[in-house]
């Protein structure tokens, strides 16, 4: 009798532990920050790329900037879909490349790249950064992307 009870309880705990990830963590899509054209660098390409990447089902949040023809995009991927990060990166890359064939596209799903791009994005948006520093920051982000 006791054995049965403990068994039942353990199954209950196990099920609740496993499924909790699915119920509580279902992330919703976050609207990207659209920066526009009249900043240190024209960000319309990045804005459009963000929209493109966010339209993917697996992506919940996206940050990105561009420096002329170089586009840097970081995406946050839904929990379960993180198993297919490689495929998602390639898909996003192809999507942007199709829209802007001339551009150098850099897509990452790395947390650090995401954080740094978020900071840079906000700075550009608020006009708190000059051209030189943007270039410096982008170089840093590129290093993070390659590891």
């Amino acid at each position, binding site marked *: 009798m006791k054995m049965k009870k403990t068994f039942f309880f*353990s199954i209950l705990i196990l099920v609740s*532990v496993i499924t909790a990830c699915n119920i509580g963590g279902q992330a919703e899509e976050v609207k990207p920050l659209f920066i526009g054209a009249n900043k240190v660098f024209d960000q319309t390409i990045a804005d459009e790329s963000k929209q493109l990447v966010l339209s993917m089902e697996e992506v919940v949040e996206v940050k990105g900037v561009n420096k002329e023809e170089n586009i840097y995009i970081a995406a946050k991927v839904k929990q379960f879909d993180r198993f297919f990060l490689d495929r998602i990166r390639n898909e996003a890359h192809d999507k942007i490349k199709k829209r802007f064939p001339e551009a150098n596209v850099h897509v990452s799903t790395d*947390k*650090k790249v995401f954080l740094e791009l978020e900071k840079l994005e906000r700075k550009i948006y608020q006009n708190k950064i000059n051209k030189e520093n943007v270039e410096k920051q982008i170089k840093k982000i590129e290093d*993070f992307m390659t*590891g």
Partner: protein
Amino acid sequence: MADQKKKNLTPVQQEYHSLAKKHEIQRPVLKNCIKAFLVGGFICFIGQFVQTFYVHFFEFNERTAGNPTVATMIFIAVLLTGFGVYDRIAQFAGAGTAVPVTGFANSVASAAIEHRTEGYVLGVGGNMFKLAGSVIVFGTFAAFVIAIIKTLIVGWGGL
């Protein structure tokens, strides 16, 4: 009890064996599994916390943050082993504390502490990897075998 061995016993001995088996306390396998799952998961949670910390506040990206994270976890585990806390946790959780990298650190540190009285060279140096050595040997060997399999599949299978 193996069948071959059972034949060699007298009937009285066999009877005794079955009686002893009846009174033997059963190993709570499922309970142990759940304990190991929860405690091991908690250790990994701490590891994830440390990794996120390194990503946020230092110049590491997700991939490079793995190295300092492992170093931190090992450092914490060695400290806890020295204070005698890790043994208590391990007694409770079993495999949950042995499988993550902290278990490896514990096995090295506890062996070093245990054999300190025999001197630093032959005691600590000689016995430090008594337990951890098997992990290294079979870890390397398994990596070797898997690398060969992968080479065969990728190279000749054309995957």
